[in-house]
């Protein structure tokens, strides 16, 4: 065992830190500039192999990247994590060479933004219950249905969409499709008004008699659910890194605030400093769970339990840290423009998306009870 980052990872971590602090803006609009700069650094395809236009970096380095970006702007972190983990990896794992050539280098260099469309109004945690249909027609399929809560909806250039060939046949008829943004019949809705992650677009995605050629089917017919599930572990580790970055942001803000108080001669009481000690300890625990999950994934071993533990613990901590840090910094922290208020609002969604933390508990318990 070795609990220190390799020299190379340390160097990258510093590079990401510098990038996040110096180049990521914290505005309130869709962070296109952030994505452009990230693309320039090669961060839009960091773990994608070099032969497909990515940087070919190890998974833990990618996780360090998401952590640092999310520390400064969690919306940008979410967009890049979704783009990479569930927007690009499905192509890498399941795409034909021709499909990969067509899309993967464009995604990896940031020319295209990727999105993932699985969730529906009646298919949330129970993703297999989706009802968007794909009807075989000459040369391809016609898709009809409505997807909801699509990260980067309306902004993305390529959507991985899941639909069923025959709902009566259940999971085994779910199939995945690659759909470009200007395809007729693809109609993104208006961005949802959300509690947090306000810089990231979340929209409905209507599919109306949308024609997909066979060449844009990802994997075989009926392989869709397997594809969706196989992406979850990696996706969850990405969200865990997002939670880790957000928890760090709240805790680091509060440490600096309290240090300034102490310098100004105010006593930091045990009621305050002990809460901070608890948060910092849990942050360390989260960090180890997240990095471990990333390393297990990198090794190629099954990492469902590790990924779920990391996702649940780190995102729960982000919420707890934001809540407690507001207590520790006092009432000024509830102003709408205060960073802690933003962390507080942003922290809720990661507890829910890519498998709510209740789903993570189901996954973990299943492993423990084997």
């Amino acid at each position, binding site marked *: 065992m070795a609990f220190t980052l390799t020299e190379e990872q340390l160097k990258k971590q510093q590079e990401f830190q510098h990038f996040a602090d110096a180049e990521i803006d914290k505005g309130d609009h869709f962070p296109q500039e952030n994505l452009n700069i990230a693309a320039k650094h090669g961060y839009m395809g960091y773990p994608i192999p070099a032969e497909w236009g990515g940087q070919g970096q190890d998974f833990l380095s990618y996780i360090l990247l998401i952590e640092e970006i999310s520390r400064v702007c969690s919306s940008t972190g979410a967009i890049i994590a979704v783009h990479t983990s569930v927007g690009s990896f499905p192509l890498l794992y399941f795409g034909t060479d021709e499909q990969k050539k067509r899309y993967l280098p464009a995604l990896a260099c940031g020319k295209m933004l990727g999105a993932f469309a699985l969730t529906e109004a009646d298919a949330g945690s129970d993703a297999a219950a989706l009802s968007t249909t794909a009807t075989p027609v000459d040369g391809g399929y016609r898709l009809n249905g409505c997807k909801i809560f699509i990260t980067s909806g309306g902004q993305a250039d390529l959507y991985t969409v899941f639909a069923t060939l025959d709902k009566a046949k259940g999971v085994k008829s779910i199939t995945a499709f690659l759909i470009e943004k200007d395809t007729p019949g693809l109609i993104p809705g208006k961005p949802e008004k959300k509690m947090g992650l306000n810089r990231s677009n979340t929209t409905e995605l209507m599919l109306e008699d949308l024609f997909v050629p066979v060449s844009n089917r990802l994997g075989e017919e009926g392989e869709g659910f397997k594809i969706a599930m196989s992406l979850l572990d990696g996706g969850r580790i990405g969200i865990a890194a997002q939670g880790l970055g957000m928890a760090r942001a709240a805790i680091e803000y509060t440490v600096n605030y309290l240090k300034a108080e102490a310098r100004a001669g105010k006593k930091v009481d045990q009621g305050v400093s002990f809460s901070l000690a608890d948060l910092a300890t849990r942050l360390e625990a989260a960090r180890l769970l997240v990095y471990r999950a990333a390393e297990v994934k990198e090794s190629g071993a099954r990492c469902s339990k590790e990924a779920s533990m990391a996702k649940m613990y780190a995102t729960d901590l982000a919420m707890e840290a934001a809540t407690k840090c507001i207590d520790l910094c006092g009432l000024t922290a509830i102003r709408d423009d205060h960073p802690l208020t933003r962390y507080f609002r942003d922290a809720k969604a990661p507890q829910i998306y890519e498998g709510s933390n209740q789903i993570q*508990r189901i996954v973990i318990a299943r492993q423990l009870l084997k």
Partner: protein
Amino acid sequence: MNFVLTEEQEMTRKMVRDFAENEVAPGAEERDDKEEFSRELFDKMGELGLTGIPWPEEYGGGECDFISYVIAVEELSRVDASAGTTLSAHTSLAGWPLYKYGSEEQKKKYLEPMALGEKLGAYGLTEATAGTDAASQSTTAVLDGDSYILNGNKIFITNGGDAEINIIFAVTDKEKKAKGVSAFIVEKGTPGFSFGKKERKMGLRSSPTLELIFEDCRVPKENLLGKEGEGFKIAMSTLDGGRNGIAAQAVGIAQGALDAAADYAKTREQFGQPIANFQAISFMLADMGTKIEASRLLTYQAAYLESEGLPYGKASAMAKLFASETAMEVTTKAVQIFGGYGYTRDYPVERFMRDAKITEIYEGTSEVQRLVISRYLLS
């Protein structure tokens, strides 16, 4: 980073687990019931080479890293926390200060027989009025010719009474307060060194906890450990590593409780199905398992840092705080999953719960860990 155990660490785990399951577990319940310490068990640990895992071979040790050591404490504690604390106090509290501050002669004379398991070690810092405020020592040591004369009482001493080698802290210069404390090696049998009552405890009942009494006890001058006035530094730095041992003990207790609760949940049927099918139970297990994994990683991290010669004070305080509170929470939930049966002595989870409590208290309470951690954060 690399989260895979080395071959040596993996072998240690396997060997100690076999020993724990075959030789320690069978008598654990009875020893707890009778409040009996088994010296025989310690002797067996010695034969297996568990009593000096991290020390160099030249002092009879196993020359392994601290991760191997905490794995051994964890695996023993998984079946019997008393056995875990015996080894932890022996190695971290008595062995470590000898290894770190002892002269060559002291190491040969005291560390080697301890590492070989021929002699048992103990550490005497706490006094009736010097608990968390450990610097306010009243035991005195006065230099008189070739020896120091010790007077005072130490309480709550793990391995007390059985330990042949005791690391004792006493005041050599009252004026200097913490900087006037010195450390001594006191052998069992030294005239003037006797034992008070054995404590009757909630848990860790087969690990003896005694009062040590020093009445004009003459300790040869060469048994001063480190220099005069270095005692408090020795005591505190010893506890930094000791905390890894307690963290490992807590991880073991929690894992033992989780294993028992998961097995029980799979077989216990209510409403026509195993209770593991109910999310009220399975979600509890998921939370328990996640916190145990986090505790284990924090503990191994602290042990790794110590092995690499990197600073580990903050890491060990975090590991101890997180792991001990996890152990208390997990064992309490394990009893809950067992229901009424869990409250009886027919199942081991009530013992685990009783054993877990002390990990939040000794070698620095959770509150002291928070104090230590917040100082690192805010200074």
